[in-house]
C-alpha cells in the first residue's frame, strides 16, 4: 500500500451541518478516486495537539495512483468543500513498508498519529539511533497493539511544516495511550530526550502534531 495521511484544521465558523457534510463526503471517497483502496476519517479526541480536528487516513494500491493532493481534491470534487470548511491541511505520504500488525482483528480502538520533524542537520547515525529508540517503544508498552513508523516523501508534503516522519499506534483502550504510553520510564526518561529542548541530544524540532481518534477496524492492517 501507498498511504497518505491528512490532518485537517476546520474553520472556526464551520457549522454542525457543514461538518456533517464534510464527514460524509470524506468518508465516502473510496469509489471516487481511482486506485484508492481504503479511507478512514477520524474526529480527534479533546486535548490533541497541533493536528486540527480530523485525521484522514487514505491507502492507495500503489504510488502511481496517489495523485498530487490538489488533483485528489479535484477528482473527488472536494475542492470547494475544502476551500469553504478547511483552514489548514497537513498531509504526508509514504510507501507503507514499516508496519507491524500483531492484532489485525482489533476493533473499536484508538488510532494515534504523530507527525514529527527530525532536524535535517541531524547526522545520519544519530537519526538512525533515534529511529531505533523510538520504535523500541512497543517492546516496553504492551498496550501498543499495532504500530507503524515511516519516513515521508519530502517532495509531497502539504502544509506549512516540513514533516519528516509519521509514528502511529493502535491501542485497544484510551488508557493505553493516556496512561501506559505516558508513564513508562522508557518514554519520559529515554525516548523523550530526543524531543526535549533541554536535552543536549534533541533531534526533533519543536511543535509535533499529536492526535488520536476512534476507529472501528484496523487502519495499519490495510
Amino acid at each position, binding site marked *: 500500500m501507498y498511504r497518505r495521511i491528512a490532518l485537517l484544521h476546520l474553520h472556526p465558523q464551520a457549522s454542525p451541518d457543514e461538518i456533517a457534510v464534510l464527514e460524509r463526503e470524506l468518508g465516502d471517497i473510496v469509489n471516487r478516486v481511482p486506485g484508492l483502496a481504503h479511507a478512514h476519517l477520524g474526529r480527534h479526541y479533546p486535548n490533541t495537539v497541533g493536528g486540527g480536528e480530523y485525521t484522514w487516513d487514505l491507502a492507495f494500491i500503489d504510488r502511481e495512483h496517489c495523485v498530487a493532493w490538489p488533483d485528489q481534491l479535484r477528482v473527488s470534487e472536494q475542492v470547494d468543500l475544502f476551500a469553504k470548511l478547511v483552514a489548514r491541511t497537513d498531509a504526508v505520504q509514504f510507501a507503507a513498508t514499516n508496519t507491524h500488525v500483531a492484532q489485525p482483528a482489533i476493533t473499536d480502538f484508538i488510532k494515534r498519529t504523530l507527525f514529527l520533524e527530525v532536524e535535517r542537520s541531524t547526522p545520519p547515525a544519530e537519526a538512525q539511533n533515534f529511529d531505533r529508540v523510538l520504535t523500541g517503544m512497543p517492546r516496553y508498552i504492551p498496550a501498543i497493539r499495532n504500530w507503524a513508523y515511516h519516513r515521508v516523501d519530502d517532495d509531497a508534503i502539504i502544509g506549512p511544516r516540513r514533516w519528516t516522519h509519521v509514528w502511529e499506534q493502535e491501542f485497544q483502550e484510551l488508557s493505553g495511550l493516556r496512561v501506559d504510553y*505516558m*508513564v*513508562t*520510564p522508557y518514554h*519520559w*526518561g*529515554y525516548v*523523550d*530526550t530526543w524531543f*526535549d*529542548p*533541554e*536535552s*543536549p541530544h534533541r533531534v526533533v524540532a*519543536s511543535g509535533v502534531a499529536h492526535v488520536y481518534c476512534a476507529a472501528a477496524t484496523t487502519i495499519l492492517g490495510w
Partner: protein
Amino acid sequence: MPIQLIYELAVPPTRLDEVHALFANDYLPAARERGMTFTGAYITPPIELDDAPTTLVLQFTLPDANAVWAMKRQVTDSAEVAEFWRRVDGIVVSRQRRFLAPYAPAEA
C-alpha cells in the same frame, strides 16, 4: 518513589563559580516553580581541576511521571530556558541530562 534527574556540566578550569552562579540565579528559581526539587550540587572529580574540565553535577527530584510531563510542558516554548542553555553551552565543554531510577537485583 521520587524520580531523580541530574545535569552533568563539564566546566573548564576557573569557571565553576560562574556556571554555578548562572544556574542558581537564572535557572533554579523557575525550575522550582516547575515542580523540580533541588537536592544538591556536586563536583567530580571531588576537587576542582586546574588543567582539565571538572564536572558539575546538579541533582533534582520530581514526585512521579505526571510531574515530569508537567515540567516538560512548561519548558517547551520557554525563551528563558532556551537562553539559559545557550549561555551555558557557550561556557561548558559538554553537558548531559539524565533521569535515574533505583536499581535492585531481582530476587532469585
